[in-house]
């Protein structure tokens, strides 16, 4: 097997919450540069999987390798600083900041000024502020929120907040981006532009792992799809293969 191409390797991950098995021996590899989607009914364990990948939860068993390095024992912020970024199913935008500040906060790992130099606002800090703002504006431009930079985050619409969260993750210069239901709650036009945004992100060389309920979106933009059901991985394959898989059909439509 070609190890070089796998940016993320998940090996036999299990997790249970007080007797409820949320994930059971999940294994999959994500290739560098691809859009890898995870689908499955509600409660299948998709968000739990994201929480484990980002270190919010610890897996009960199994290992996660990011670029060959074991990350499942690292703290969340450590994992993030290696280049793993995510968005949230129920938005976690910083409502106490402006739009651009939100995105500037995303640049945390690309900068290094500390508390003392911030207090004194050394020339180094001023220079850093300048480039951070530039990076933030670049990210806002990608998601199409450049004109809202100085508005309060709380004044944005739901669809815009979803984009803002993506911009915030992008500004951290991730190597892999985990998107948790980016199209949930969006109307058709917004979903369409979300799809082109996801494809644009992939074209920038960022690997995308996508959790999404909108099948059209998933089938059209993914390279590969994994189907989860009750914490178990049913199948992994191209969108066409997955759509034909009888197990998947029965999981979604119910079996006789």
């Amino acid at each position, binding site marked *: 097997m070609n190890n070089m191409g796998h940016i993320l390797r998940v090996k036999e991950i299990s997790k249970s919450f007080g007797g409820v098995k949320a994930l059971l021996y999940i294994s999959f590899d994500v290739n560098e540069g691809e859009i890898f989607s995870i689908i499955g009914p509600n409660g299948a364990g998709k968000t739990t999987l994201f929480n484990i990948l980002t270190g919010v939860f610890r897996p009960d068993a199994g290992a996660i390798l990011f670029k060959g390095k074991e990350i499942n024992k690292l703290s969340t912020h450590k994992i993030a600083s290696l280049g793993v970024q995510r968005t949230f199913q129920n938005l976690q*935008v*910083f409502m106490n900041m402006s739009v651009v500040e939100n995105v500037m*906060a995303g640049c945390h790992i690309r900068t*290094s000024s500390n508390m003392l130099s911030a207090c004194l606002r050394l020339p180094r800090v001023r220079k850093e502020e300048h480039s951070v703002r530039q990076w933030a504006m670049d990210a806002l431009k990608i998601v199409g929120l450049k004109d809202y930079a100085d508005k309060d985050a709380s004044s944005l619409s739901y669809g815009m907040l979803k984009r803002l969260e993506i911009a915030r993750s992008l500004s951290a210069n991730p190597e892999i981006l985990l998107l948790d239901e980016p199209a949930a709650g969006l109307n058709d036009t917004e979903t369409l532009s979300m799809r082109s945004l996801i494809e644009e992100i992939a074209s920038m060389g960022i690997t995308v792992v996508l959790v999404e309920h909108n099948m059209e979106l998933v089938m059209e933009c993914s390279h590969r799809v994994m189907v989860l059901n009750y914490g178990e991985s049913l199948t992994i394959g191209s969108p066409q293969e997955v759509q034909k898989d009888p197990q998947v059909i029965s999981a979604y439509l119910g079996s006789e």
Partner: protein
Amino acid sequence: MKRLIGLYIFGLTGIALGALFPDNYYVSVVGSTAFFHIILAIALNLFMGYAGQISLGHAAFFGIGAYSSAFFTTNYGLNPYIALIIGLCITFFLASCLARPILSLKGHYLAMATLGLGIIVHIFLVQEEGITGGPDGMSNIPVLSILGFPLDSDIKWYFFLLAITCGAILISLNIGASRMGRALKAIHGSEIAAECLGIDTATVKAQIFVLSALITSFVGSLFAHQQAFISPDSCSFFFSIELVTMVVLGGLGSTFGAVFGALILTLLPEVLVHFEELEVIIYGAILMAIMIFLPKGVFVSLCEAVNRRL
């Protein structure tokens, strides 16, 4: 520079008042008290407003600073600056040891822990009469000198404290518009999202807690010298609550909100002094009313209203 315009207005007003009315009680005496409160409120706002945490025990650090200065200058005749630094060291040691366990707590549990810390320190100050003079406190704390000039009048203190206050405002504004400031606000907004962006939330929270405590201890030391007297009453649970009130009165997270809140709460007792018995009830009523009707704080709400008009 637009960023610092508020600071310039504040500094110039302060200088003008001091120069025009040097003998006025409300300027030199009440003004100096106001400066103390402003710095304390700014320090607490770093922790509560920026980082979204809560402390009901900040008076403890004030007390540690004040009593270190009082104790080492009167009992050992140490130089006030050395005493002040000893106070800062004690505060640094205590705050950094407690920061991580205390700050892993959230909400009500954090409130409880900081409250407990404040009360324990207060009881220590009352009980250890051999060190602290007990409930009577310590007096005859020597005058502070700057480069050989003794601060021996109210108006000298006024200008000295004005300068320190401007420094505190500058530091607070600088932190607000920096990588660390954004990290703090991110923790306030969503701790989990902050962590997922690569922010080491535990460390950042601990750092701001220690910084806030150090500033508070520093102010305590200055206060002891200015009053030449310190007693446990100055660092009680009620004083911690007063500091919290200043911060939320102006508006959490806003440096000038803290300035505003501290000014109001300094002037209020002066106004209410004729209604001594009413002071407590009015104080409580204001606190409740503001939090119910203007939870963002008076100053911040005012600014928002003005912005909407423009």
